């Protein structure tokens, strides 16, 4: 009895790391710009296919290809921001959320259908020569690629955390989260901060997607589920805490994994949404968020 629980716990933690890195992207963008980009899941999906294409067409190892995927996503992020989101900056907060929701849904639908055309509805995944390798620890199996993905997610988020805490640009981003008007008066070009954050969010989504395509599988219609997951993790973790969001991702991953083990796969979404509601009711600032003041 104990062994399968430990095994599911391990799987939950590993997938949770990817939830974390994907959600940090969404959370950062929402915190800074108040854009609620519900096409975040579709951006993740695109990152996944980018990695998949690099591997199948050009035989680029998925982990070596990761920086290329990030670069492609940066370009896409700049284009999407200039084309669709830059015009939203001038609106008050509530209008911004509503408008970006609409734009996000539209963009999501477009991307999903483009992906269907380009890659068909089949499940895809990257199978390398080392994909079947497993590390066994006390009877618990850790698939090598998933462990590597988890570690990469952790390292990237730690680096991001350091960037936000230590660099001038990072501090400017944190200041803009708190009070964009006051930030402007610090000679911070808030428009630039918005663009940078949006691009960073897109790159993180793409990176998460590429990692999903290695250890798991990708489909053109995966976006909505991932948008939902990242929204839940964002609320769970609370705005403004990178490592908090990562931990919240792991919490959700474990909760889902254990529920589907005990109650069946159909309960995965139920536990996620229940967790979401509980946090909203009991701790609206999130598990690790700081209250205003």
């Amino acid at each position: 009895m104990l062994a399968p629980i430990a095994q599911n716990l391990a799987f939950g933690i590993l997938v949770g790391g990817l939830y974390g890195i994907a959600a940090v992207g969404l959370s950062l963008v929402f915190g800074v710009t108040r854009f609620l980009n519900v096409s975040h899941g579709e951006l993740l999906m695109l990152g996944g296919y980018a990695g998949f294409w690099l591997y199948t067409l050009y035989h680029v190892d998925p982990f070596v290809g990761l920086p290329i995927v990030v670069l492609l996503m940066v370009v896409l992020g700049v284009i999407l921001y200039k084309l669709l989101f830059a015009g939203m900056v001038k609106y008050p907060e509530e209008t911004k959320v509503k408008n970006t929701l609409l734009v996000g849904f539209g963009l999501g639908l477009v991307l999903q259908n483009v992906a269907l055309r380009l890659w068909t509805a089949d499940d895809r995944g990257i199978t390398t020569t080392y994909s079947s390798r497993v590390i066994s620890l006390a009877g618990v199996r850790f698939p090598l690629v998933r462990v590597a993905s988890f570690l990469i997610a952790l390292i990237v988020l730690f680096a991001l955390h350091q960037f936000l805490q230590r660099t001038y640009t990072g501090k400017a981003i944190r200041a803009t989260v708190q009070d964009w008007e006051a930030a402007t008066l610090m000679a911070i070009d808030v428009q630039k901060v918005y663009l940078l954050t949006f691009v960073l969010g897109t790159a993180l989504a793409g990176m998460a997607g590429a990692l999903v395509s290695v250890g798991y599988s990708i489909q053109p219609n995966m976006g909505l589920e991932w948008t939902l997951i990242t929204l839940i993790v964002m609320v769970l973790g609370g705005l403004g805490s990178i490592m908090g969001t990562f931990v919240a991702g792991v919490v959700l991953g474990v909760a889902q994994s254990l529920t589907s083990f005990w109650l069946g796969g159909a309960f995965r979404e139920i536990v996620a949404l229940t967790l979401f509601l509980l946090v909203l009711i009991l701790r609206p600032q999130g598990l690790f968020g700081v209250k205003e003041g």
Partner: protein
Amino acid sequence: MLEVERIDAGYKDLQALWGVSLRVEEGELVALVGPNGAGKTTTLKVISGLVKPTAGNVLLDGHSLLKEPPHRIVEMGISQVLEGGRVFTGLTVMENLELGAFGMKARKTKDRNLKRVFGLFPRLEERKRQRAGTLSGGERQMLAIGRALMSNPRILLLDEPSFGLAPLLVEQIFRMITEINKQGVTVLLVEQNVRAALELTQRAYVIENGRIVGEGSGEALLSFESVRRAYLA
């Protein structure tokens, strides 16, 4: 040095300023006083570029600021302290001050300005590692003013620095403002605390319903009949 010429400005359908003109000369300490909702804050925001006027002009040394975005206007030497200070509560005192020197030119003089700010407000040095959210109201106001000084401004725009503070603290803040002015920073001070502001300044403007209704030396305005009746009675 700073000229505001016949400004009209507002928010959506609501016009807040009607042909507002004022000027501030190098080294002066000028007050803009008036009741709540008269347009004092809007006037400051027009100068700092946060609100773009529908008519009129704002000139710094004869150059129009209308086309400049607010973050550029800061780099040109105009630094505004918003009402309530608006410090970044989640960041430390030190981080707040560092961000005050975010502009490229200001970064080069960061250490010198930091010394100056800590000289004016020793309390900030004691608390430099604390989150700004843990500071008292008076300390937050000091931090806001100190942060604004970090950009090495030629003109400091202060919006109600006395707001919500105990009388003793108000006195202390006003003393600091005089001191900052003596160090060579031109100050435009917006205040509801009319008597204190008029006693402090060389020159003042009175604004009501979005229009400038009076101008003169602080002393002259203090004895001005309508000002006495409206604010000091």
